[in-house]
């Protein structure tokens, strides 16, 4: 099944057996494709002694995400690179670079649309981004945060920003937005930490309560920076309801190395793999597969990446598989939760290295 055909499937419709067939075929083809088109990738596979034949999903070689910091991995000629996504770089830290051509870039947008429409629907909504417009300044080299905002911008019409250039809550702009779109369903988007610090806490400090009415807030980027503040997902959601009247909140897990293939939180509070990507959990000691309920290092598999060999990656996150195809929410596929970072990983997250 080619990727365009897969995208016509509903995002949470594939059961285990069906998905296994699609992913075995798809990942085998992608592994071969990248081996033929990306010499450094071929060299890695040769060194690992990976044979050129059919692969079960769990046997597909996985690259650590940090490999994109060390190697320029692309499976297209330089002239076809349309956009470069960078992940988590500041001075002193090395930066991952992901090379996109027009086809992979288009599929990222379509995939994000298919997955997110399960919560948002097919119509564009008035959208408030809890961030500053300045993160989109350099359009040729996006940060992961900028890429996230841009990705979700397809759902917004119009799109407004809640923070000014100094990362302060622009209350006047937010109230004007609310006044203008009162009575309509509203979409809010941002990174978990930014929402907590610059929206929830800012509103609390000012003693202001807003009411967004029929609203859904989607957030990602991880809880790492909130761990020190001991904010639980329940408290986060509850606070958003109290200070802004936000009715529905959904977390997502995703990374610049597989943009588009996000893992969306269902109404039961579980992250779900869609039909377009999958997750495996591996024991840190020997990379053996974990059983249900056993925390492990998260491996992400996706049939999307064609301009760079990012179809099978070992992340620096730990998670735990909760089940497959039987979440009470009704969505098919694996569902899981994130438990933290792997020990001793270089400190990085999907929200850049903004520390403020």
């Amino acid at each position, binding site marked *: 099944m080619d990727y365009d055909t897969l995208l016509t499937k509903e995002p949470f419709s594939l059961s285990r057996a069906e998905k296994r067939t699609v992913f075995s075929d798809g990942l085998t083809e992608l592994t071969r494709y990248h081996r033929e088109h990306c010499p450094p990738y071929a060299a890695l596979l040769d060194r690992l002694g990976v044979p050129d034949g059919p692969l079960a999903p769990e046997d597909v070689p996985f690259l650590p995400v940090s490999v994109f910091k060390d190697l320029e991995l692309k499976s297209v000629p330089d002239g076809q690179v*349309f*956009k470069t996504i960078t992940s988590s770089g500041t001075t002193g830290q090395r930066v991952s670079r992901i090379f996109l051509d*027009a086809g992979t*870039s*288009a599929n990222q*947008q*379509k995939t994000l*649309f298919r997955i997110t*429409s399960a919560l948002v629907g*097919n*119509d*564009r909504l008035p959208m408030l981004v809890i961030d500053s417009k300045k993160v*989109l300044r350099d*359009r*040729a080299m996006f940060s992961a945060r900028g890429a996230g905002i*841009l990705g979700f*911008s*397809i*759902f917004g*019409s*119009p*799109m407004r920003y809640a923070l000014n250039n100094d990362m302060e809550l622009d209350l006047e702009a937010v109230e004007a937005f609310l006044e203008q779109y009162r009575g309509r369903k509203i979409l809010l988007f941002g990174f978990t930490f930014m929402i907590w610090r610059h929206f929830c806490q800012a509103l609390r400090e000012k003693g202001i309560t807003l009411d967004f009415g029929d609203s859904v807030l989607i957030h990602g980027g991880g809880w790492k920076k909130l761990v020190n503040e001991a904010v639980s997902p329940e408290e986060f959601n509850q606070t958003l309801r109290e200070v802004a009247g936000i009715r529905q909140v959904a977390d997502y897990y995703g990374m610049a190395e597989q943009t588009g293939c996000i893992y969306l939180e269902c109404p039961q509070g579980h992250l779900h793999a869609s039909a377009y990507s999958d997750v495996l959990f591996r024991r840190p000691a020997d990379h053996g597969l974990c059983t249900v309920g056993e925390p492990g290092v998260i491996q992400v598999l996706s049939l999307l990446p064609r301009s760079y060999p990012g179809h099978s990656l070992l992340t620096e996150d730990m998670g735990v598989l909760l089940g497959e195809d039987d979440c009470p929410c009704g969505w098919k596929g694996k569902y899981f939760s994130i438990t933290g970072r792997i020990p001793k990983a270089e400190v990085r997250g999907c929200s850049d290295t903004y520390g403020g």
Partner: protein
Amino acid sequence: MSNLEKYDKLFLSSFRVKPEDLPTLTYRGIPAWDSVGHMEFMSEMEETFKISLSTLDVLDFSSYEKGKEILAKYGVTL
């Protein structure tokens, strides 16, 4: 100004291209028509023709020619 003139003008001003480039112009085909450019362009399209495009149509708006088909669905004839 006719609808077609308005449509062409949006392309010419958004992407700084010449009229003879229009028939072959595609999304992601030139640096100016990237995803940032696309979203701004779609907003202007909606404002100009007083329509509200669905998310799927925003994603499908992949070329100068394809855009004409999409606008036709919203009752905008060029």
